[in-house]
């Protein structure tokens, strides 16, 4: 958990808004460090374990973390064998035109399974973290299917169960090019931005490569208040180290001051 980012988002492990759909996106950059932040943020335990760090293996054992590793499961689908014992979740790889319904069944089954009820009082509401929707696009799934998938996840987790959803979507093209080079991921990004309540968009610096400042993060809140929507945007620059990331206002990097 990055303490600076938590304070920027006005969230702490004890009190955070529920029913939020967070979109983490990047353009020609790498936003996966933010997934680490959210993972450790939501997996927080008591104060002692917070200081010691969060152990994913332990969380998985206790049942707090349910992990679907698409890469491993996909192999049995991509190389068909006679005995197919893989889980059904990655079946969409066989025929991507069909859609992501089988993949959606995984979070819905977790949310409705009885085993969750045992420890449900201990832990908070359900949080769904999706690392990299753009990989689904490069595997042949259509943009519409991915948007449907995200919509269904949001409907189930955010509205019904008052949980949170965090999704990562990546983009490669330049923002100004509208030639249709990268139609798929641009459309996906636009569609997801409209659905979500909090966006963190990671980009490289507009002035070029810098060793001390790895890029900029634009945080955008979209709140529905009364009649219309209000959006609030903030821009930060960041640097990723071994143990975390530091966020600062543009121009105030320790390398500059």
């Amino acid at each position, binding site marked *: 958990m990055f303490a600076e980012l938590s304070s920027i988002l006005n969230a702490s492990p004890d009190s955070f808004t529920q029913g939020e759909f967070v979109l983490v996106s990047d353009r*020609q950059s*790498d936003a996966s*460090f933010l997934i*680490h932040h959210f993972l450790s943020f939501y997996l927080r335990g008591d104060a002692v374990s917070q200081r010691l760090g969060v152990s994913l293996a332990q969380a998985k054992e206790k049942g707090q973390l349910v992990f679907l590793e698409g*890469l*491993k499961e*996909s*192999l049995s689908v*991509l*190389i*068909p064998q006679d005995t197919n014992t893989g889980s059904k979740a990655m079946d969409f*790889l*066989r*025929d*991507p*035109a069909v859609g992501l319904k089988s993949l959606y069944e995984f979070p819905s089954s977790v949310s409705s399974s009885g085993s969750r009820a045992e420890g449900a009082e201990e832990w908070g509401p359900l949080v769904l973290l999706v690392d990299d929707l*753009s*990989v689904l*696009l*490069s*595997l*042949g799934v259509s943009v519409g299917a991915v948007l449907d998938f995200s919509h269904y996840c949001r409907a189930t987790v955010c509205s019904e169960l008052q949980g949170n959803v965090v999704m990562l979507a*990546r983009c*490669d*093209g330049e923002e100004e090019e509208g030639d249709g*080079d*990268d139609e798929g*991921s641009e459309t996906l990004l636009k569609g997801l931005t409209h659905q979500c309540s909090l966006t963190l968009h990671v980009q490289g610096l507009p002035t070029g*490569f810098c*060793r001390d400042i*790895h890029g900029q993060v634009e945080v955008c809140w979209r709140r529905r208040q009364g009649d219309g929507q209000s959006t609030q945007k903030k821009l930060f620059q960041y640097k*990723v*180290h*071994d*143990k*975390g*990331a530091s966020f600062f206002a543009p121009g105030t990097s320790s390398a500059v001051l």
Partner: protein
Amino acid sequence: MAAPMSGVGEASAERSSFNATSFQKKTRSRLISIPGTRPSVQNGQLLVSTGVTSLDYLLGGGLAVGTVLLIEEDRYDSYSRMILKYFLAEGVVCRHELFVAAAQDNPDDILQELPAPILDDVAIHKPVEQPRLSCEPQDSMDAMKIAWRYQNLPKVQSALASSSRFGHYYDVSKTMEPEIRQAAKCHRFYLPEHPTQSSPTHSTMLESYSALLKSLQEVIHREGFDVAAPMTKSRNILRIGLHSLGSALWGDDLCCHDNPKNVHALTSFLYGLRALLRSSLSVAVVTVPSHLIQDRALMGSITRLCDNAIALESFKGSERETNPLYKDYHGLLHVRQVPHLNCLASKLPDHKDLAFKLKRKQFSIERLHLPPDLSETVSRVSRGELAGAATMASGCSSGTSGNKHLDF
């Protein structure tokens, strides 16, 4: 802590054992020690050498086991093919197993062109060679008159132990001797030899890629490279070299059309390849003719699906060949992606202007750097000064090695 050390301080010639001390370090680490690999100092991953020591440095010490290196080919596929051959040659020298797949040339031809290693300290695997004791040849005492203290240390590493060097140098003008090459186990996949299957196995992946993926999985299972396989025998690394994926010879139309029909064939294959590699002790080098792929976003998603990615841009045939700026180099090298395994941030190289040069004994990658021109007349700096300034290790040393034209 007093450890029993036998005869270290003695300089007498009575000392007959070639081991300086009998102290043995107890390693409690459970790291499997495979010849030709070493753990990374940054994140503890197991690394293998790509065969090019300067490329190892750029990638953070070497290629991590279980990852893919994508090489975007230069225009005539000369230098990318050279790096592939270095990679395979390094596998032969470290006694790893090889898997070569190609659609254009027979893998046997590629294997015959491997460069010869410079063998001053590489032990060729010969059956049962006794370790040489120092006291055996008394006449060789005459050989060392000054460094006589080193007389008792072994000159040649025992052939039973693997080469302890990480990364070797190769002589490009000679090809590897057949004995050395045949000592390594090679698996081949030559696309024209595999008949097209009638039943389409996957809707987005091409038959050629499916066949290749299936063949790779078979080899990994059969030879025991799975991480989950029982540790009965000693482990080894499988080096996979895939030549020119995405080209028309594989049946792919990525390079032929602006809007290819099988847009996701190569990306699905790379996804499956990564799934295979992550669960086995293997490393892959894939070359792709990216200069033929018009869609930059597609190239971006291909890069994202591989872990390491570099692009080569050679000067051959372009107007840069005669440009005096680049006269010492054969091309530019761009590092597109370096993975961050088990850590938050990846260590991209600090300098983005890298150039490579294929010399006879080394493929060197240096920072393209010109010293400031301090002379009165605008003349090209002499060759020696340029070569001295552009070394990889030095930070930003300018060529201040004496400019004779400076007189005030």
